[in-house]
């Protein structure tokens, strides 16, 4: 589903964020991406949704070689991936409903279908009663769940989460992780960047560890 082939990323200014990273993720897998702050976790995520391009090597997503994707085709790639970010990236002047509906509006779904899917996504993350509220009135954990609902509302085959529990207390973190686990159970390929090692060890999943841009597989 996701394959990195000898990928290096050097940012303008010379910082080597990734050094010859290779790995493959099967469809339906769930994997944790760990490593110190600045190890290159976010950079890996950004390469998958084409927010950055590799300096060397190739990234494949669902069989597509991303180095062949033109600027115009980027939105379509991004729509096929659900992303959850640490800083929730919500529209604060829109209701919860409208936030979650955004990917559907972009994809051009009909009114009724949008309502149906948004409610399904909100009920999955346990926010059914909050659709008319604005994000500011929600707690941090609830805002994060709005972000997750938006990431899955379009039923993507791949879900990327960059430190989704970064600001949350252990209790809420566990809830969020359980949610990702559920999506994985129905076949979604899930990749979660985190430095919450306690959580990772409890989940007993494949773990990829980055150290100064170099990737190593952690044995279970």
């Amino acid at each position: 589903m996701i394959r990195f082939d000898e990928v290096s990323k050097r940012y303008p200014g010379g910082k080597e964020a990734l050094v010859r990273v290779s790995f493959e993720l099967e469809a339906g897998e769930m994997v944790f991406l760990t490593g110190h702050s600045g190890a290159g976790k976010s950079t890996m995520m950004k390469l998958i949704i084409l927010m950055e391009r590799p300096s060397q090597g190739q990234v494949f997503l669902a069989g597509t070689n991303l180095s062949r994707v033109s600027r115009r085709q980027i939105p379509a790639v991004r729509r096929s991936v659900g992303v959850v970010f640490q800083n929730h990236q919500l529209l604060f002047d829109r209701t919860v409903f409208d936030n979650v509906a955004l990917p559907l509006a972009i994809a051009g779904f009909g009114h009724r279908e949008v309502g149906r899917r948004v409610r399904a996504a909100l009920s999955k993350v346990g926010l059914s009663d909050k659709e008319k509220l604005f994000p500011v009135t929600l707690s941090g954990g609830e805002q994060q769940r709005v972000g997750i609902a938006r990431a899955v509302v379009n039923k993507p085959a791949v879900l990327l989460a960059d430190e989704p529990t970064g600001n949350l207390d252990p209790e809420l973190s566990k809830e969020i992780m359980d949610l990702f686990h559920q999506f994985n159970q129905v076949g979604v390929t899930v990749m979660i960047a985190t430095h919450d090692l306690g959580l990772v060890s409890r989940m007993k999943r494949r773990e990829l560890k980055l150290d100064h841009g170099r990737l190593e597989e952690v044995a279970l």
Partner: protein
Amino acid sequence: MTKTPASSKSSGATTAVTSFRAKALSWASHHRRVAVESLSSLLATWLTSLMTWLVIGIALALPIILYLMLVNVAEISGEWDGQPRISLYLVHGAAETEARDLAQRLLERPDIESTSFISSVDALVEFRAISGFGDVLNTLDHNPLPAVIEIRPSTTDVSQLRLQVTSLAGYELVDSVAFDLEWIERLFAILQFGERLVAAVGFVLALGVLLIIGNTIRLAIENRRSEIEIVKLVGGTDSFVRRPFLYLGFWYGLGGAVCAWILVQGSLIFLSAPVETLAQSYRDDFALSGLGVLDSCIILGTGSALGILGALVAVSRHLKAIEPK
């Protein structure tokens, strides 16, 4: 493990095929929604919006008012009509038979429609009657007035008339030709200059409107930077991201055009009474030409088009630079 995503993918494909109509409908309803949202965002800050609308309105109204002035002046002067007259003053002592003969011969020229001969005696009688100088004239021992042939040319074209005047002056019997070409030529020159002026002013002000709208849209883009980043992050296409700003430009342009229309109609009402009084001394049926339905549509259409164009310029220059980080 690989079974489920494959099936979810294929179900996604079926939805895409079966719901083409639904997608077209949703596309239309999205347009409607974006249009309404951008208008209501303008109305929510109506005072600021009104300022922008007025500035655009003034910029559009100015060339329109100039243009209407031009049209009306052309109409009044056109009324001086297609019937110019040329007077041929004949040499003193020209024999009346020869003079009548000339008048007759002139009729054969294709550029002359009719002639009429006024002998020096008739001219004196007429002059006496209308001038009131009868007593003075009686003291003169000879008639100082020349015989005259009045001509109605068959053309109204100024350059042809000018040629005609030169050729008429060539006849032996003709002493001088009176025809006030100059003021007509001046008027035509002024009208032509006016047309150019309207075009130039219109062009410059249209450019100004484009810049005003472009700049306003640039600020709107700047204000919604984080929203644009998010929309792009979740896969918003360029046209999706662009759409609200194009509608914003459209509303700015249309609102500005409505202001311009009100300003123009207001000035016409304000000016119509004195202008018509003045003009009716030349022409009794004169009415100030105002904005018709077609003119109004053109104004509103031009305003909206300028709005969209200004927005397009701003969007193409500033939207690409905003990428999610």
